[in-house]
């Protein structure tokens, strides 16, 4: 089973997210992450979906998504030169004795401390999932109190500059 990254553009209307998530459940697709927000066009949302499955399953996911009336475009960017990013907020146990150690780790990962409490630190990291996973792994021994991950967002690279404005031939 392979991981595939899909980008879907859809009308920003009530219930559309429900249609998409309902489709995944009904068709028994294995979704690893799903992240949605505004796109560059008003009234159009952009969703990045990471789905597990072989080529045939993914072909079905793409076509089923595209069949939804509110979904305007779907593209599989797995084999395209793309930027993948995820953001995570990690609240980690940090008594006064451990703080500097954690802050040091954080800076190695180009992450940021965004909140300091009496017994904990909150770290923000943005990057490819592998980097996020590594930092989480290193912070685990200190005790992670809370973890929030956004799931993957993706964008195709523009290459030598003659691509479309958003780098995808939709």
């Amino acid at each position: 089973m392979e991981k595939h990254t899909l980008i879907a553009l859809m009308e920003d209307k009530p219930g559309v997210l429900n249609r998409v998530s309902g489709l995944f459940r009904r068709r028994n697709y294995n979704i690893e992450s799903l992240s949605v927000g505004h796109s560059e066009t008003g009234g159009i949302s952009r969703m990045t979906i990471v789905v597990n499955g072989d080529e045939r399953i993914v072909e079905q996911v793409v076509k089923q998504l595209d069949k939804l009336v509110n979904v305007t475009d779907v593209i599989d960017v797995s084999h395209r030169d793309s930027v993948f990013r995820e953001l995570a907020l990690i609240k980690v146990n940090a008594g006064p004795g451990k703080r500097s150690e954690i802050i040091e780790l954080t800076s190695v990962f180009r992450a940021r401390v965004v909140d300091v409490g009496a017994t904990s630190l909150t770290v923000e990291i943005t990057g490819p999932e592998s980097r996020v996973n590594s930092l989480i792994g290193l912070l685990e021994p200190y005790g992670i109190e809370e973890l929030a991950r956004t799931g993957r967002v993706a964008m195709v690279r523009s290459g030598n500059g003659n691509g479309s404005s958003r780098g995808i031939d939709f």
Partner: protein
Amino acid sequence: MKRTGAQAVWESLVREGVDTAFGISGGAVIHLYHALPDYPIHHVLMRHEQGAAHAADGYARATGKVGVCVATSGPGATNLVTGLATAYMDSSPVVAITGQVATPVIGTDAFQEVDITGITLPITKHNYLVTDVEELPLVMKEAFYIARSGRPGPVLVDIAKDVQAAEFDYDYPDEVRLPGYRLPAGDISAQLEAAAEMIESAERPLIVAGHGVVLGAAEDSLLRLVEQTQIPVVTTLLGISAIPETHPLCLGMAGMHGEAYANLALAEADLLIALGSRFDDRLTGPVDGFGAQAKVIHVDIDTVEINKNVLTDLAVVGDLRDVLPQLISAVDERNRDEWLARIRLWREESAQRDIVGQETDELVPQFVMRQIWHATRGEVIMVSDVGQNQMWEAQYFVHHRRRGLLSSGGLGTMGFALPAAIGAQLGLPEQQVWVTAGDGGFQMNIQELATVVQEKLPVKIAIMNNGYLGMVRQWQQLFFEGRYSGTPLLGPDFAKVAEAYGIPGITIREKAQVDAAILQAVETEGPVLIDFRIVQEENVYPMVAPGRPVNEMIRRPMPTGKR
């Protein structure tokens, strides 16, 4: 023009060419019903909303037009669910209009509130919740456009009660704006050339004709293609009537209860040309063994169906209405005598096993179906229910009339036949419409007999009454140690029930009485119900056991002695 939301709904229906709607009134559609008498729409009051959805579906299947049903919020709307799922599985164009509680109380668990757009999400092609009256005209326009275009399907429009009452300036749009809804429009000439080459080089090609041929009104083209290429045709259940079953190249229905020679042809073919069929498991059996010797050409209007169940060697995405004429001009004539001769041998062998050719005094359902065909000369619309009766109808009534069989194929909805026949009869008042059902399924929507009477519909009803949920009993007999758990079924005296509704009822126990009863039904002007007390433990043969390939069939034994 000032209109209320309710008026706008009916006016939009009229503009879409609707003259019949099936429904039941209620609190959340009271504004709709208040406005209804001012519009030239015949409203058919059903006895259950499930019946309304099936009737709209039956109307659509019989006429090719969009069927419309109406229900109130809450239980009215949820009662539509089975009917909408039935229409969705069989790609039937239906628009369902439901009332919703008023916008200020949506989400408060108000009286008779239910999230019907949420509930019907996976069983509609699309749906809408209208909370602003200004959106209503465009929503109605889009609903009809989506329901009837491309691969047809049901669309539900849920309209809040205060929206129905609100006044606004009504203006019906000329066009829809659906950026995410695209119909197949690609150039397929290259694929068709490739298809023609595959067809010409195939020694044992076979066409699998599905519902798409009927939905695309491509029956004439199919016939021309078949005669030009001499390629035999099997159909799916819903593909029945895509080609006249009287045609020598038509092998009838294939699949779990298909003709043996149709299934053998499927197994032996070296090229399968699927036209508007989604390769349902009841056709294919386990897909890994399906068409083991064959290359597959798959023509479908819905790209999602390509490679969904059966992997395709060549896909053509398009409407058969457009694709078939192009394919015809691309392929050459060819003689296929050897292949056809093999099929003829299989056919002769099957005829020897056929129970209808055997001497028996028992009242068997196959004989009843065959005699209905004889008496009507096949010139009627058959509406079958689900189960053994459905398979006997498919096997023993010889369908040659366009859209001559309406049946719930994908969802397999027991209780479909009677309300669907009501819809069909209203859509085609000049045609004779027959319901064939089992005693189990008929009891699931028996209340619609009242609608038959209220609407003065001359529907003929034949019940194959064996006192069992027969198809499940057959499985229990063959695969579950003969343990008849939950299948023996006590029914009423159906003839008396019919009489209570004001419909002549006949009970038939002897084979010798069958023809006279059918003739009486054919010749009676109004509705007639015949309760055929058939042999209780008759089975449907051939049968492909679940999980087995289609050419491994359980057959009726060869008769001993002479035929």
